[in-house]
């Protein structure tokens, strides 16, 4: 890339680069480094101890469980919404799109609050649930509902622009030639969007496993029962067990880094098969 830079005063470029690197280092990279530094403050044994703790292990299991339920459901929703929106013309489409985006613009705490308003002790359905001995708030069900609300847009938002761009010609041809709806979907649509789907699922999963505010409202913080990994971090931190909190935090930071790596790899390798907005 040899673009003419004749009109720039000498010395400005290095200065600006240095400034940008400094901003990024202090503001963004330092916190990440701190997680690992603090986690090993008492060496490997302290780090290990925090991770083999039964409460930590049950938090890991719960986090995996919540993500394993929420992410596939939102992936199916994303596929259905993208099919309806990009393959048909109907009234109210833009309202539907706005509704899909809505969870991104509400506070995580509100995303938890709404479930308490419905199913909490004094919620709309609270009494009915109590009469029928069903509990939602302070259980895994509540955690799943809050997580689903927070992560709802991820897959749909990846698929809709891509499927819009690809158009329906291939599917229309298949149908005209006598292929069934399901065959068309699995033989044409799914292979066409597989990388974008994976991209959306990756982001959805990262958010599902790392969500804090929404699940914090519905969890009740019962140790070993309704604490996901982020909530377990809070409990340890508030107990002044800093090494433990940061040790558990390295798991989530690792998840974030792996997600970032895979996401970047997808962007580089399959730029053409992701949404237009993802092309670099």
């Amino acid at each position, binding site marked *: 890339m040899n673009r003419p830079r004749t009109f720039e005063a000498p010395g400005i470029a290095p200065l600006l680069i240095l400034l940008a690197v400094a*901003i990024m280092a202090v503001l963004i990279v330092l916190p990440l480094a701190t997680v690992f530094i603090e986690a090993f403050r008492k060496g490997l044994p302290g780090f290990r101890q925090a991770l083999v703790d039964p409460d930590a292990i049950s938090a890991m299991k719960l986090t995996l469980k919540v993500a394993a339920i929420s992410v596939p459901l939102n992936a199916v929703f994303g596929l259905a919404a993208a099919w309806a929106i990009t393959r048909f013309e109907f009234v109210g489409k833009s309202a539907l799109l706005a509704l899909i985006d809505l969870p991104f613009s509400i506070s995580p705490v509100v995303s938890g609050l709404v479930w308490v*308003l419905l199913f909490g002790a004094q919620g709309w359905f609270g009494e009915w649930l109590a009469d029928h001995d069903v509990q939602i708030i302070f259980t895994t069900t509540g955690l799943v509902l809050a997580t689903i609300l927070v992560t709802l847009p991820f897959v749909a938002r990846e698929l809709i622009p891509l499927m819009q761009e690809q158009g329906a010609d291939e599917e229309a041809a298949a149908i005209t030639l006598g292929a069934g709806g399901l065959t068309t979907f699995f033989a044409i649509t799914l292979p066409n969007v597989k990388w974008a789907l994976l991209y959306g699922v990756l982001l959805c999963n990262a958010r599902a496993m790392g969500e804090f505010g929404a699940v914090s409202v519905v969890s009740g913080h019962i140790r070993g029962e309704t604490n996901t990994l982020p909530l377990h971090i809070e409990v340890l931190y508030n107990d002044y067990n800093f090494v433990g909190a940061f040790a558990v935090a390295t798991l989530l930071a690792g998840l974030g880094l792996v997600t970032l790596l895979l996401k970047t790899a997808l962007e580089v390798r399959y730029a053409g098969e992701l949404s237009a907005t993802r092309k670099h």
Partner: protein
Amino acid sequence: MRTLTIRRWREPSILPGFGLSLGLALAWLAAIVLIPLSALVIRPWELGVDGVWRTLTDPRVLASLRLSFGVSAAAALVNAPLGLLVAWVLVRYRFPGRRLLDACIDLPFALPTAVAGIALTAIYAPTGPLGGLFAKVGIKTAYSPIGIFIALLFIGLPFVVRGVQPVLQDLDREVEEAAETLGASNFQRVTQVVLPAVMPALLTGVGLAFARAVGEYGSVIFIAGNMPGVSEIAPLLIVIKLEQYDYAGAAAVGLAMLAISFGALLVINLIQTRLSQRGAA
């Protein structure tokens, strides 16, 4: 010629699955978004209009709303020049480590908020590396509104950078070169050619950073100190009200946050429309 057009609510298509896919999507949206959010909109009014007003004008609530929106706006505004600078460097210069720097931009998106929260607190607490430095000159960073500001700076930066980056990339360098040939100085080039072109995208980025900051919880509550009236953010007040089983009060604060956020985004949108109209004229 008069043609009778019957407006159908959907265009005919040979593709199957319209009813199934739309039905699934609508059912899911109703169950997960519409019904829960309708509870947020309806429940505050159990208190009556008076009660909602009293809840929202309670000094503690008022202070938390002012803090949340004020610090969010400040952080988003400061992120504008920072993000613009980082985006500019990433787009315009080639240097070793550029790709790594570019990937690092997304770290705040990738790092779970609770993790960012405790890490920022460790850095900016009086005993931490940077918090200690600030403490020496008498500035309390963590456990004060400044701590909240720092956390929101962290959360918001990627929105601005990612918003501006594509526009800078597509910016026609020839226009800049023409300005240069016509005798424009560096300063004039930036303020009169580059800035107007990126302004709408910059505003979008700032708006997104602001909206995210207002609702932010995980990365803020550890560093904030959470002193009522001083460093207690609005989302935390919702949690506190819920713990006191004041559902309607919690919903009122949540609804107020939502309303003010949408109002702010609307204003940003209006300014943006104005800007792009001026740009087109």
